[in-house]
């Protein structure tokens, strides 16, 4: 007799849902922060507010690096199994 818990690989499925949700939403949100930073940088530069523009560029740069790091981490995890 196979129990439903045995049939459905619950743990793997739950982990799939959690990791895919975090990765999908997280990467898109952080990339959106990068775009926001780039857009603000352009506007602030045109308004000649250089310190604020530098902060916006910094936010964009860090967010972009975080996205790249997340992708590289994901691929490394994939290749290790």
């Amino acid at each position, binding site marked *: 007799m196979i129990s439903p818990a045995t049939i459905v690989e619950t743990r793997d*499925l739950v982990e799939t849902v959690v990791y895919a949700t975090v990765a999908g939403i997280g990467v898109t949100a952080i990339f959106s922060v990068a*775009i*926001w930073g780039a857009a603000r940088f352009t506007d602030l530069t045109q308004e000649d507010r250089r310190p604020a523009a530098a902060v916006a560029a910094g936010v964009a740069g860090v967010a972009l690096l975080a996205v790249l790091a997340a992708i590289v981490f994901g691929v490394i995890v994939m290749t290790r199994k």
Partner: protein
Amino acid sequence: MTSDVILVLVIGTALAFDFTNGFHDTANVVATSISTGAARPQVAIAVASLLNFVGAFISISVAATVANDVVDSAVITPTIVFAGLIGAIAWNLVTWYFGLPSSSSHALIGGVVGSAVAAAGFHVILAEGLLGKVLIPAVVAPLLAFLVAGASIGLSYRIIGKQRPGIVSRGYKYGQVVSGGLLALAHGTNDAQKTMGVITLALIANGSLGAGADPPVWVIASSALAIALGTYSGGWRIIKTTGTRIIKMDAAQGFSSQGAGAAVILVSTHFGFPLSTTHVINGGVMGAGAAKRLSAVRWGVAGNIIVAWVLTLPAAAAIGALAYGFTSLFGDGAVGPVVVTVLSLGAIIAAFARRAVKGAPVPVQSEGGVRA
């Protein structure tokens, strides 16, 4: 000698299936990038082919599931695998002909299950594997992609706020180069592994490999090459359905849907779930559209696609069972598979010739959805 002839036919047919899989799924991988203008079609398809090839090498978890967890490899013969492949290829071509983005993966698993049941009865099905690793993830994954894409685009719009559309659109288009690449990588790794799994199953059935063996390197490399070539050959017909007929997307939606699709497929592949990449990608596209405006999704077209999804497993299983029945009319030797191969090639050439005479097929939008 006879079994070797059948094995060669199985491997050739499996690689042909892999080619049609890539051919059939090109649209799913590149449609969003093309429809938002993030990439030119030729470039998008070339990059997708390359990343499909690379993706096939990064995991073998799904191949192990297909080879060992769906049907009992102890009672499988190369002829059963052959008939299953014929069922899958036939269904793939039928759905390609009508422009429906159905699942090549479900067609493959359906075909193999159908021919195995026709040959040895229902006891040959490994219920745990089929239900837990194929059927339940098949339902969960597209819904997950739908929700993740919807949540992603909602959050993105909130973060972006009222920034200048030109810069924002350009930014997401650059992002789509990466998200589209990840989607192609994900597609290659999940879909190519199904062919690796089937070839491995045939090698085990033939006694060339022990039970539970991993796919040999030549199987991985040839599967990678076949799916990459298929993707490069492209399925232009289905691009229209996926890229523009479900929703009209902006670049942010394209990025969100591709990101959601890639995340779901890559994580599922890590756990060995042989997903339908088609279902997941279309789930993401619909989620990104519905989150912005429910009426933006052409639900009639989406409904047609869902009908194709539901039909795929039983239809491919039925064709696989019929193919096995027909093949066995010629006995246990190589004659049956040879005859079926020749007949199948003839039918495929006739179908392509008919399409060539009628011109490039384009699905027509009707009130109920897509029709040929």
